């Protein structure tokens, strides 16, 4: 009898352990799966917010897009990256290795944003809105706007300037317009040409113009126009640049602050703000403050040297936008004068009205047009605000000087220097405006995993295609 009992026990135990497979069916708690992420209109809207979050990241408009433009182009006599972070130090010295992490992250972060946008633009995603065409159209236009902005920054970083040689053969970056859902060889795309990327940028931003006039702190039709104005200027399409800038100015939604300093270190958009990255105490990144603000909020690495001040006329209010710190002179565009305010938790202005006046002035001047106003009036408007006497006549050099002084540290210096064919210097020697060293290398990691990428000249070949 006992033997049978034992056998029964053994049997019982083995039965107990059959069918344990369901013990292995567990689901994540802080993520959702691909299948449901874009399955409802509500989810898609949060995915759109997610795309903006990437635009505001430290490697996009939360930092890199802006400060790398400045430290990578300015002459060493004016802007000196004096910190011990070697990657931006090398960028400032125009002495970039192909493994430079900051360069790499501009690439990967931009495509991360593009993939977020492409997920929204997938026909299957947009179909979820069904009959709600208004929401569908808005989401589509915003996603295209975001994608256009990302490609604009990529083409500038990794491609030659539009006015440098032949944009239809110069290589920029791969053009990806569909979301990534599986890993396979189709991800190994070659670099599209500079002109192909610009075409996509214009197409996407133009789609953004269909956005409503008002859309909170998100992109609206004017934001799209403002970016188009910048893009057309980079391409040398002056009439289009003037027209888009004029669109923004004449929308009358924006007005210049009486004090230029009001543009910076804000916690919300102001009257002159066209587009700003929103940073709250608990969300968003502000790497601008990290590099421009002194301890304790930042590292105060981007030091403004004395010769820079000679650019300003006497009485120019913009010459006061500096502070002397233990680590040298810093711009106050990303450093709150109130020591109790954590500058890293302030918004970053990406696009403001003054740029539109200066773009219109330059584009009109170059085409001898007067769309909206004369170049002289536009320039004098900007001058008057910073306490400078009006000019009687205006030259292109006047406009460019005004633009440089107005927008320095705001992310357009590199684009302006390249399109105006202004060089820089390297290791104490002059560097031509179109020198190889003034375009980022294709990141080493990309060449390692994509045999179809060619490296930019001047960086060797490495693992890139010959």
């Amino acid at each position, binding site marked *: 009898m006992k033997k049978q009992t034992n056998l029964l026990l053994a049997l019982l135990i083995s039965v107990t352990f059959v069918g344990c497979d369901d013990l292995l069916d567990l689901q994540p708690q802080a993520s959702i799966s691909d299948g449901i992420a874009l399955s409802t209109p509500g989810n898609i809207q949060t995915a759109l917010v*997610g795309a903006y979050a990437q635009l505001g990241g430290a490697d996009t408009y939360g930092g890199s897009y802006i400060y790398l433009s400045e430290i990578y182009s300015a002459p060493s006599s004016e802007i000196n990256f004096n910190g011990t972070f070697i990657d931006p130090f090398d960028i400032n010295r125009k002495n970039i290795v192909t493994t430079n992490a900051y360069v790499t992250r501009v690439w990967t972060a931009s495509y991360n944003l593009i993939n977020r946008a492409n997920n929204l633009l997938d026909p299957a995603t947009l179909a979820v809105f069904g009959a709600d065409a208004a929401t569908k159209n808005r989401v589509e236009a915003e996603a295209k706007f975001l994608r256009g902005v990302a490609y604009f920054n990529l083409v500038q970083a990794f491609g030659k300037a539009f006015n440098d040689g032949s944009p239809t053969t110069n290589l920029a970056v791969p053009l990806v317009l569909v979301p990534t859902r599986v890993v396979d060889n189709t991800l190994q795309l070659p670099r599209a040409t500079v002109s192909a990327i610009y075409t996509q940028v214009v197409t996407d931003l133009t789609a953004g113009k269909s956005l409503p006039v008002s859309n909170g702190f998100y992109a609206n039709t004017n934001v799209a126009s403002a970016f188009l104005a910048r893009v057309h200027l980079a391409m040398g399409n002056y009439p289009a640049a003037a027209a888009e800038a004029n669109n923004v100015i004449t929308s009358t939604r924006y007005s210049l602050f009486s004090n230029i300093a009001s543009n910076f270190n804000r916690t919300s958009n102001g009257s002159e703000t066209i587009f700003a990255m929103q940073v709250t105490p608990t969300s968003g990144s502000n790497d601008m403050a990290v590099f421009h603000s002194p301890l304790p909020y930042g590292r105060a690495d981007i030091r403004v040297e004395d010769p820079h001040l000679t650019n300003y006329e006497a009485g120019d209010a913009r010459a006061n936008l500096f502070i002397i710190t233990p680590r040298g002179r810093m711009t106050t565009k990303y450093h709150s004068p109130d020591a*109790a305010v954590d500058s890293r938790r302030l918004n970053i202005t990406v696009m403001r009205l003054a740029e539109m006046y200066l773009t219109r002035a330059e584009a009109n001047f170059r085409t001898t047009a007067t769309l909206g106003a004369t170049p002289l009036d536009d320039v004098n408007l900007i001058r008057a605000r910073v306490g400078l006497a009006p000019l009687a006549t205006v030259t292109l050099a006047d406009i460019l000087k005004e633009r440089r002084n107005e927008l320095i540290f705001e992310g357009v210096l590199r684009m302006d220097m390249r399109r105006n064919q202004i060089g820089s210097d390297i290791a104490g020697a002059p560097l031509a405006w179109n020198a190889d060293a003034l375009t980022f290398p294709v990141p080493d990691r990309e060449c390692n995993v994509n045999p179809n990428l060619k490296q930019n000249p001047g960086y060797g070949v490495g693992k890139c295609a010959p």
Partner: protein
Amino acid sequence: MKNFLRTLLVGAFCILSSQAMAQGLTLSGTVTDKSTGEPLPAVNIFVPSLNRGAVTDLNGRYAVLLPAGSYELRVTSVGYKRFNTNVVVQGGNLTFNIQLEADVIGLDQVVVVGFGETARRNVTGSISSVSGSDIQFNPVNTVENAIQGRVSGVFIQQNNGKLGQGIQVRVRGSSSVSASNQPLYIVDGIPVLMDDFSLSVAASNPLAQFNFNDVESIQILKDASAAAIYGSRAANGVVLITTKNGRPGKTQFNYSFQRGNSEPTGLVDMMNGPQYVNFMWDAARNTDRIRAAAGLNPNRTAILEGEFDFYSLGTDWRACLDASKTSILTGTAGGGTACEADTDWQSLAFQDAAMFSHDLSASGGNDATRFYVSGHFSDQDGILIRDRFQRAAVRLKLDHKASDRLRVGMNLSGGRTFNQRLASDNAFSTPLQLIAQMPISPLYYPGEAQIPANLNNDTYYYNGIIHKNFSKYNVTTMRNTGTGYLALDLIKDVELRSELTADVMTGYDDQWYGPETAVGFASAGAGGYASVAWQQSVSYGNSTYLNIKRNIGKDQSFNGTAGFSYQYNDYNYAFTARSGFPNNSFQRLTSGANLLSGTSTGSEYSFVSYFARANYSYKERYLASVSGRTDGSSRFGKDQRYGFFPAASVGWIVTEEAFATPILPIVSFLKARLSYGITGNAGIGNFGHLGLWGGTSYGGQSGIAPSQIPNPNLTWETTTQSDIGFDFGLLNNRITGEMDYYVKNTEDLLLTVQIPGSSGFTSTLKNVGNLENKGFELVLNTFNLTGAFKWNSTFNFSKNTNKITNLDGQILTGGLGFNRALEGQPLGVFFGKEFAGVDPANGNALFNIYDTPIKGGSITGTTTNFNLATDRVLGNPNPDFIGGFGNSFAYKGFDLNILFQFVQGIDANISGHGRWSRGNGVFEDNSVTDQLKSWTLANPNTNVPEARYLVTNGNQFSSRYIVDASYVRLKNVTLSYQVPRKYLNNTGLTKVRLYGTGVNLLTFTDYPGWDPEMNTDFAAGNIGLGNDFYTAPQAKTITFGIDIGF
């Protein structure tokens, strides 16, 4: 859960079916040591035919109740040869005294294997053992430290000298590139949690809660046949830790106390004030000379002087500028004397480090019930300022024989550690980053009282001393581990055993930063910053299995194990941060004005496993073992989640053969072993196979974004290992040893594969690639002198060669960005440009151009353009060979143990004191004195390029910063004196032992940093090896202790 209930019910039923004990005659006697005549406690006396036994008490006495008859008696004790005999009990009680012979070769030592134990004689796999007595009261932080250098095939490297922090343990090399390389730790049958609760980028050590003074033995299962019973998680080896069991007899107490002090094993020779000022000033002049020649503003010396003026806080730094130099800013000549402020910042990083520990244990019981209880408390200061580690631990083990057939027991342990942690090596506030400060910066504001409130906050880098005084980073970790077991003899020779296990780890991370600190000042709203994090990882499970032991006829014996196990883990995390505290007396979140963060998350995983093993021996000389395990893991998709891991091994004890008799005087023992098997690795994060979207936010609104690209095909990484080994004893076992050669091939690597960033992702987890570890291990034990003066030596040597054989073209980087996983190379090689030295003509740093990339070929030229130099493999952070050499001497009551540990042929990347403090003056960081040898016209033949302030001249990562980090270390010296028993009569004491121990007393190395045993904590990983970034040295510790038994 349902299943547990059923199991419990089964268990309950089993208890009811127990039966009463039989009556009979008493067999009793005393067991003594044959050579010393001392009585031996805790000897097992076993009567196999009745499955009944007894254990000797403290006086070596035993008693077994037997019915009349003839019995085989098996007598076993750790460290003694087994003794088998037959006794006949008839007509009355029988006294039978037994003498046991010491077992120098350890053949009959019990070796714990997965789900069972066996005699070392019968082992056919490769297992390293450490006895608990070898590591007891070792004044080191954790159990891994304690076994360093004591076992072959195991490379143990602590990240740094901070207490309670990460440690790397590699059994026979790294077998994975992206998945875990950590061995599986089993404590008393429980796979213990190895969660890293650290909130900083630096890992903490989850085994730090474990009181290793409880250890009876540690077995490291190295080959596939030994480890395969743990199938899925055994590819990296298995560390089986067995704690002490209760010993029946009079309750024996043991109390031990020790105290001691630690200091760093080494320092780096940093420049003093005058050296620094003149070096930097010259560097700035050099830059200006070059700028002027290029037509640029030569203002760098002015910039430097301006900084010096600022950071010296008004103290006269020009006093120490050479008299031959004229200040650019003031036009005055240097003083040529001492600097007014000259701070030795390095010395401020260290503190006087004291430690003490108390251990109390009791063990006892009777034939039916045995117990072991222990308590431990230790308090250890780290060598770095504010570093501290306290541990309190208790353990209770109970084993009860409910009947002849049924045994129940439990094993409970609780531990609490309190760690005053430090910031990671990458933080300005970590103590050793103080070396980068300018020596001319005073510690306090000049003219102010030297109190914390007046600490200099205008230093070049954030002043870590402020951090020390105005912040806290306290981590309390609680660990409760429990097992309840029930063992039932189902039928003769068949035991059913079921264990319920739970392991609960709870961490409380309490941080506060006053407004004086950078973190506290910079947080939103004035008044500092504080955060708390609470984490809990709960693992519970059940293992139920049958053990079968059967002798077939006279010559054959068989034993087998088959069963099931389930393990489930649930992890939860909560974090809250506030800022704005009224003053520094308020450090709890309740007083903070602004809520900055409040978050929680969690995850879970489970494993379901079925396993079986069979061992067979014929004539005790032909041995064979087969095992298999099927594992299912929640970490893989539905179609890929099960893996099968088989292994087989054979052994042949040659010296048991008749033909071996003639060689016995020389070769007293020889066993050949051969094993082959497959083990697996699922040491990846949870849900790696799913496509996922995670939460994010923008402008205060919530969003989602893709976070992971799916891979439904993700499955087990498998390692196939072959091992051939010999165990031998020579010259009547005066020399014994083991020799092993193995080949481990890992395939379907769980690899974090880089994918084109243009996809929007940078990596995905994929089964791709192969790697190989091959190695040789040798262990020798010699008994040089065996008389009254005893001298034993042990030597172990391990050579492992790691090679990545296939990565599918992937190039993976790690560490500080310069370690790589490269096909054809060992994991983690340093990769970059080769430094060609200095151009004697102008002091420029030169780099080599080769005709072949990576390796081989020849140099075709040099270049100053870093990008044009050829990328090469620059060094290997894996050692060529490692080992240990120990000697122990005993005379009367004195014992002297000396252990040397060596690690040879290992390369390191000096980064903090390399690229920054050996960057020939490019930055304001203080430099190492060897930079004074930088190029000048008068000193053109040097390896240090011309010093140029703010100009990159060779401080890029290159072979310039790859150095040899081999070392030989006097790891442990213990001198003890045990008071002879005769002096203890009538004192009530059974043992008094006094001892002194030294750890890391001497280190022989050419390494130019603090300590060659390092791997910077924030960048340590499978690929990230051998990087020194302000990495704290190990502690050199001397303690004195007393150990009393009563």
